[in-house]
């Protein structure tokens, strides 16, 4: 039996994207929620809870981009021009968000400005990422190995919906992270924010799911026809169970579980998306095999990725472990 490396690489890229979405997702979510937190202690603690890890989290975005170029160069070459304004907006948003981590401490007199840069940058980045996702799902016009659509193809009600869904989902992750890492008044606030963000996330997830059915006959067949439906229907079913547990946990003031349940929601969302577009990487016409790098490239990268990725997860885990526990008044001492 030979293993199809194209499928292996599709899963590795999917894992990288998932790692990025949930890890930088809660960083960006905290940025999105920043205006709702009190100036002073609330914001400082929230910022401190992610200061040591945000950079590592963001690196998964480089892995997603670099990995896509390496493993599926054609997909990289089509998606980026097709979503050009969104990619630029995302990158500039991340510039503001990233430097704010350092700059707000360097210049207390302009902290209000850097706080705005932090939340504005996070919001723009999250919205752009969600809309890029939507722009891929709704299909990209391709001819002759290149993007063949027009300027504004990426802007539709559907992409707005996926963009808002991503913003709400990140806010949920961020709020649940704060619930876990903080205590006292800020934590109480985070519980309220998590409930609201959770409701918004579920409503938008449902809306996107129904919209998906209207996009392509293929998508409908994947979800609604026998025997697919027996398998596919598990995803919304599990989502409903997880959502119930999440709200129950938030009411019961569970501390760590809500974050893990929010992660589970994202995992299910990702599984749903995977089910929807498989085996395309650029719907409706470019499959992962069309876009895949040649065998030699796949093998060469796999030789490195197989030992190194677990190592990365190990020292990333160690870094989280070092900064474990509540970010209390005494900080990291």
């Amino acid at each position, binding site marked *: 039996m030979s293993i199809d490396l194209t499928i292996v690489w599709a899963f590795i890229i999917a894992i990288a994207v998932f790692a990025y979405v949930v890890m930088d997702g809660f960083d960006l979510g905290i940025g999105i929620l920043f205006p709702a937190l009190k100036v002073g202690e609330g914001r400082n603690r929230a910022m401190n809870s992610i200061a040591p890890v945000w950079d590592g989290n963001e690196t998964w975005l480089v892995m997603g981009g670099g990995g896509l170029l390496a493993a599926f*160069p054609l997909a990289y070459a089509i998606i980026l021009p097709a979503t050009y*304004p969104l990619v630029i907006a995302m990158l500039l948003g991340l510039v503001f968000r990233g430097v704010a981590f350092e700059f707000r401490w360097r210049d*207390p007199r302009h902290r209000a400005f850097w706080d705005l840069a932090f939340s504005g940058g996070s919001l723009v980045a999250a919205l752009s990422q969600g809309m890029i996702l939507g722009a891929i799902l709704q299909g990209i016009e391709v001819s002759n190995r290149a993007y063949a659509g027009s300027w504004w193809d990426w802007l539709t009600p559907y992409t707005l919906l996926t963009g808002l869904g991503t913003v709400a989902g990140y806010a949920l992750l961020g709020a649940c992270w704060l619930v876990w890492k903080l205590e006292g008044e800020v934590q109480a606030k985070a519980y309220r924010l998590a409930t609201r963000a959770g409701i918004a996330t579920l409503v938008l997830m449902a809306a996107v799911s129904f919209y998906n059915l209207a996009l392509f006959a293929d998508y409908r067949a994947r979800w609604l026809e026998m025997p697919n439906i027996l398998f596919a229907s598990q995803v919304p079913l599990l989502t409903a169970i997880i959502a119930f547990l999440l709200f129950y946990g938030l009411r019961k003031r569970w501390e760590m579980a809500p974050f893990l349940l929010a992660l589970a929601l994202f995992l299910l969302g990702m599984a749903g998306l995977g089910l929807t577009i498989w085996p395309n990487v650029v719907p409706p016409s470019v499959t992962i095999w069309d876009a895949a790098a040649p065998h030699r490239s796949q093998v060469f990268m796999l030789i490195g990725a197989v030992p190194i990725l677990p190592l990365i997860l190990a020292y990333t885990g160690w870094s989280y472990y070092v900064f474990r526990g509540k970010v209390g008044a005494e900080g990291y001492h």
Partner: protein
Amino acid sequence: MDFADPLMLARLQFAFTVSFHFIFPSFSIGLASYLAVLEGLWLKTGKPLYLDLFKYWLKIFAVAFAMGVVSGIVMSYQFGTNWAVFSDKAGPVIGPLMAYEVLTAFFLEAGFLGVMLFGMNRVGRKLHFVATLMVAAGTAVSAFWILSVNSWMQTPAGYELGANGQFLPGPSWAAVIFNPSFPYRLVHTVIAAYLTTAFAVGGVGAWHLLKDRDNAHARKMFSMAMWMAALVAPVQILAGDQHGLNTLEHQPVKIMAMEGHFESHPDGAPLYLFGLPNQREKRVDYAIAIPHLGSLILKHDPHAPMAGLDTVPAQDVPPVAVVFWSFRIMVGLGFAMLGVGLWSLLARWRGRLYRWPWLHRAALAMGPSGFVAVIAGWVTTEVGRQPFTVYGLLRTAASASPLQAPALAASLLAFVLVYFAVFGIGTWYILKLMSGSPHPGEKGVAATEEGPIRTAGIVPGPAQRVGEEDGQ
């Protein structure tokens, strides 16, 4: 220049974002190593002075690194946004190298950065030193991979051409990675990063010596920086010469442009010290030249014949004036660095290293020289390989994304505005940190919080200063 031409706009944008980005790693590669040396010396000798210097430069590193990260993420997507055809065609070969850069370098530096910045009291000295070493290793490994990619684009090797127009990897990845110009470019660039840091550190040390020649911390950093300048600047000139000979072998047209050799010289080529290359008339105006020196340097024989741009089809000639001048700026700064290094040796020998204000003024003036030299060198090699993205095989004009001029113009404008504002302010913060005098009991990143009016000594930092009311 035609500003309605999408190709020109795509090139301008890429040149802008990559040049801006290049400034930060050329500093952080050297600075990360310097920090590792300082922490290592502290652990070995136990002298608090080294810890003070470590903390002083760590604060600056944190700001520079943040800017390097955010401008670097832009780069990982600019290949696709601006050069989609290039990405599709060259992706199978260069993509894996960039993936290795992420796997072996970016995660390493980012993963250990948090511990390096905030973790000293959590993990203890030894593990903290390990974290510092990992960050330093990450920056160096990153240089290895990205320069391999760049070198492959300059001197492609180890590839096959696919039926779909893609460059495909051949049987040996070593041939791709260790392509002909890579070893030279790697050595030249990494030394450049060390020199850039040495002169930045030396400039800061000199500034504080000018204000207080007895400042022990300023003395130490100045002395360390001047050792680097004196020892490494000559090595760099040698490495640059070797890199030049390698370029002559593999990219002779680039050398012709660097030298301003529009015409062939069958009896030995001159070296132009000055001149205004006139590409239309194919000559160097107002030239000041030393006869035969060009052949002597490049061929080690004053009468060796050298071909000129008259032997090259017009459509394959790079813009000569840019390459000619950026090369001279780089070389000039390199010799100025050597000069300061030798001067510091003289000062050391005469016991005046800390008491020679003119040396300190010279070192201060040379503080930013590394950055200028690095950018000038980058322009030389990148403009000099035009009009190709994959040298001799894929033209720049055939590499671009299917984008329209207004989209590119708008995003170029956005990049220019945001970069100048954000990185300008960041540079200002770095200069503010540098203007603070290094002193005993220096605070770390986590303890540099709040303005000067606060009670000194126990002011909590970003990691600690929670639970305290914010200065609004």
